[in-house]
């Protein structure tokens, strides 16, 4: 299992409790469109991801992240 796959799986596990409609997750799944998350859900989820990986995803970075794949890339980069 590559690092990226491991990160994807961890991210997916963090998404699960917020995935009320059981949307199937792929790299291309969008948070706003597919998962239909509002800003409050996004905030709780980001905090959970930050704590899981011990990183900070600034609001500036969050604005650029629309898909699960982009988040996995961002986490991989921040974990460095």
């Amino acid at each position, binding site marked *: 299992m590559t690092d990226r796959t491991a990160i994807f799986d961890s991210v997916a596990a963090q998404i699960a409790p917020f995935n009320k409609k059981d949307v199937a997750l792929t790299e291309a799944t969008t948070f706003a469109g597919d998962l239909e998350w509002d800003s*409050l859900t996004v*905030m709780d989820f980001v905090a959970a991801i930050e704590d899981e990986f011990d990183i900070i995803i600034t609001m500036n970075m969050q604005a650029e992240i629309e898909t699960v794949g982009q988040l996995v890339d961002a986490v991989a980069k921040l974990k460095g």
Partner: protein
Amino acid sequence: MTDAPAQTRDLFSKFDPLINEREALLATGVRDPYAIVMDQVLSPTRAIIKGKETILLGTYNYMGMTFDPDVVAAGKKALDEFGAGTTGSRVLNGTYQGHKEVEDALKEFYGTSGAMVFSTGYQANLGIISTLAGKGDYVVLDADSHASIYDGCGLGNAEIVRFRHNSVEDLDKRLGRLPADALKLVVLEGVYSMLGDVAPLPEMVAAIRKHPNCMILCDEAHGMGFFGPNGRGAYEEQGVEGEIDFVVGTFSKSVGTVGGFCVSNHPKFEILRLVCRPYVFTASLPPSVVATAATSIRKLMHAGEKRAHLWKNSKRLHGGLTDLGFKLGSETPQSAIIAVILTDQMQAVAMWQTLLELGLYVNMARPPATPAGTFLLRCSLCAEHSDEQVEQIIGMFETAGKATGAIA
């Protein structure tokens, strides 16, 4: 101007969901909570709305200074002597004697070496946050921060990091993950305006001081006037005065007029007057406004009896509403704001309208202004509410709560 056709897609199309939601709500026959007109204002606590005398419980007039005779007289005198407006920026032709006087009053009130007056409280946060934290710096803010704090972050070029509301642990953790050598501005509020809850400032300050290169800004918009021995705010009451680098506040609440400010002891504070865009590129406050503000601030230094009555009112209303079975935003009366939490928009509007028909005005607040997607009726008390008015208010809540099913 062109007459735009209503149906085609244009720049307004993104507002269609909100337009439709409002139309559906108003179609049920309720009054629009965001279109109230005060036809006459009789006092800090009473107004005429659509011909009905109404108790005001939805203003920020905490200390009831709007009709103070000395304050009004100072405004009239300045209007006569200095005219209606300055037509200028603070750094060009817009600084009059009155602007210096109100900054002197602030320095005395806060015991600081520096004070800078902005045209609104919103602009004070916008200007201070966006100017202090530049590219490569960090702003660390509470998730429930006021829109002016978020917008200050948006205007600037710093990296923005949020922590969970009033969570000392979450703040500590996030600061620990930032580069040690980066410069950080931590933005806190003494009193959070939607639920009326107060920040645990000593614990937060202790957590912040574990980390290097942090300055602390505390917004005391809803704390000035009645927290602490000198009425400086929640940070004074909680004994962390020596730890706060910048206090931001407003004249539009306890002071009773309009305007914003920042006070600080930083030796280089004055340079902000030349580099802070929301200070430089807008007109200064009219002479009458700064004169009323200066007079009011000086009177607030000696307003012990008013403070005591405001706290009495807050405790009585909180206790009365709790006894009736309402769910409130804070378990104890922590400030002059008491938020009544309702289940949804329909119940909130029904309660709001019933109260208005009984002769009581409160604020209806909804997401995104409110935390956690709540619908609430926000009550803000005034030192000038009499004991009788507070009892009347509790009686009206009982009637409206039962009529709408909000309480059993």
